């Protein structure tokens, strides 16, 4: 999926897929923080902006 989205012109950083077990609370929090920071750096998505 990541590969295809990248191919059609999405920034690859916009899609995260990660396996986190229910017991890995810290890993989940860290991942969410990491994603948020990266997305902030990327700025708003320019693709598919005309969606209603």
């Amino acid at each position, binding site marked *: *999926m*990541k*590969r*295809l*989205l*990248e*191919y*059609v*012109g*999405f*920034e*690859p950083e916009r899609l995260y*897929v*990660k*396996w986190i077990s229910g017991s890995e609370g810290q890993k989940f929090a860290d991942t969410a923080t990491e994603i948020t920071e990266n997305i902030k750096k990327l700025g708003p998505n*320019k*693709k*598919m*902006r*005309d*969606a*209603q």
Partner: protein
Amino acid sequence: MSKETELVRNKAKELLEDGDVELVVGYEEGTYPSRTTPLFADTLEKAERLIWNPFCVNSLPKLLSKGHFEDKLAVFVKGCDSRTVIRLLQDNQLDRDEVIVLGIPCNGNVDLDKIKDKVDITTIIEVEVTNNGVNVKTEGSTEELSREEALYDKCLDCRFPNPVIADEVIGNEVSELPKNKNKDDEVASLANKSVAEKNEFWEAHFERCLRCYACRNACSACTCRDCLFDRDERSTWLAKGKTLSDNEAFHITRAFHVAGRCVDCGECERVCPVGIPVQKLNRKISLDMDNLFGIGEIATSEDDIDNPPPLGTFLTEDPEEFM
């Protein structure tokens, strides 16, 4: 009458006469001798209308996948179409015992859109396709064209000129075809472009999409009776309206749905009225699937019928890029 046409008619008549089948599915002349249209011959009279030439392009097995036919039938297939047969058998859309597959080796199909500026397509009498080029004979003259100038793009990169499944092969086997085009290289070169360039490329194409769903309806892998795109009233993420993002969502979703099931027949791209390079999407997915699951080319022999598509099964050794 060409030699192939004669063979096709004789075979059809023989099968109908002997009562081996009730119906023979082939092609007849369409609007012009250079245009063909499917023919469902259930009588000897109709079998006399069958033809075979390099204009016999659309995939016939797809027309049989609706469960409309109760009687035993025979169908003519080219190499690409024969992979569709395997695809449909994998999905239980065809019953192997009820279909006689008549394979015909193919050198490539002629694209009327490509040659219409060079010859008057209404006057074409005969066309011969060889490894070296394409000779188009019209009422007035003979035009010698290169394969690139005359054949469908999908045929320029053909890896299966001979049927991979057939109860009988009619005509001589084709030796290896010249590679006039390399789709995989095209995919790679597009993939190597910048995010912005890729975006621009696809948006220009998706913007034109009419959402006529010809690509879906012609697709060998699209066999759902009830397609999600017809059920969009129930989904909130993909609207029927034609906007760039809905068009884009449609194409990305469709590409995923055929992942590991696309047989690269190229019909999607051929039937698109607005020239969207659909196959460039599907081929990318096929290459990714091979890369991830090592499946290579799918639907290349009768043995593949029992190989389930990789995304339809789970194996513990499946790759997990996200762990």
